[in-house]
């Protein structure tokens, strides 16, 4: 699993990446009450808006940590948005992307680097 400074995680299998938000992000967001997922088939570049997470209080953007085409979204989040809080780094995934450049994931932080980054916040 790889991580961004915006607190997204990426797990790559072949040329498909699963994307979600980290446990830290889920904690900061508070209770998630609504998730807006991207359309399957949409192509995103790094930093594009991928999804929107809403808590009682506020809406927060989730950015694409890596570029590609959306091939699947986690429909569970539509009916059970609280899954983001319960299992942020597993069942609470947001979308799967077919990567345009699978090697780009290597530029992201590994768990050790991300943990060190959290220490600085």
């Amino acid at each position, binding site marked *: 699993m790889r991580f961004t400074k915006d607190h997204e995680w990426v797990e790559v299998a072949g040329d498909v990446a699963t994307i979600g938000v980290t446990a830290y992000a889920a904690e900061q967001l508070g*209770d998630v*009450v609504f998730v*807006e997922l991207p359309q399957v088939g949409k192509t995103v570049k790094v930093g594009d808006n991928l999804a929107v997470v*809403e*808590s009682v209080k506020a*809406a927060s953007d989730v950015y694409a940590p890596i570029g590609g085409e959306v091939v699947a979204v986690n429909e569970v989040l539509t009916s059970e948005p609280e899954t983001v809080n319960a299992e942020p780094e597993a069942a609470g995934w947001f979308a799967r992307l077919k990567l345009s450049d699978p090697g780009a994931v290597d530029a992201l932080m590994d768990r050790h680097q991300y943990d060190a980054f959290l220490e600085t916040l």
Partner: protein
Amino acid sequence: MSQPFKRTPLYEAHVAAGARLVEFGGYEMPVQYRDGVLKEHLWTRAHAGAFDVSHMGPAFLTLDRKSGDADADHRAVAAVIEPLISGDIASLKPGQIRYTLLLNEDGGIVDDLMIGRPVWPSRQGMLYIVVNAGAKEGDFARIQRGASGVATLARADDRALIAVQGPDAAGVVAGFFPEAAELTFMTHRRIDHAGEGCVVARCGYTGEDGYEILIRAPACVDFWDRLLADERVRPIGLGARDSLRLEAGLPLHGHDIDETTSAVEGDLSFAIAKPRLKAGRLRGSERMARELAGDLSRVRVGLRVLEGAPAREGAQIAAADGAVVGRVTSGGFSPSLGAPIAMGFVPPALAEPGTALKVIVRGKPQAAEVAGLPFVPHRYVRKV
């Protein structure tokens, strides 16, 4: 560098309780504690929440020279404040509190506030006033200017103001202030606690029964700690305070109402003193009379968002045919209803509960309908 934001006397207690702090009204305030907004909200509806609202603006307006005739002195101090506000203060009974509006020359709402008349004959000629945090410097200056030479405004915002709200609030507060049980909704009195003279008011801004307690800073930390030691009570941040008042259908100044909004547009006509309106002796009388007669372009309504994301402040409201007809002024997710709700302004022809509308969130129209306010029934205690 100097501290950029003010802190309430309970700041250290909030930090120790794991609060997440944000800037609000110039103060560093807890937006939530460890439970988070959703659980804090539901706890308040089911049990009792304790809120630090010391950032608000409590003050006392007192006649410079009292005559000693209690009723005459009350009428005299009422006459000082009435030209600035929408409501009638002279008719308040001893101990009564009234929700009222500070108006500009056009009848626009400068702020909304509470004004109370003391119970005791010896204290007549004084009013207890509580204004909003964000507007208090301007409000206080405006009131003092209006009172100049006749009465003096003494700020009390160095004290702590603590709200206890929820179905268990009465039981909790009676443990500290037994006489508080005799108060009904929108009344107050001075009650001593552990040698401290406190102002205890049965009111709040959550739709629940509850109290707001003004207590001097040195005593407030002990009081707060003892409140929270009661298992029925949890500390509640501004996040849940906002979702509670939204469910209660209560407007938030600076969002749902502001200097461009009249009391009629804001659906706050109950706060207009009708005799003074008829006599043209109210700021914005002409405008409000016209609006009450039907010449009204917009009115505040509740909205239930029937699909999709919560519609928040700034989202457009459209008629069924897609034409934009208004704007959301506050909105979010209702923890009690498990669905998004909002308030906003629409033309009166579209203000009937049940009217089908759209809210536009991130460019997408979502089904919504006008809902009667409050969204969640008030549980005020009007009889004891």
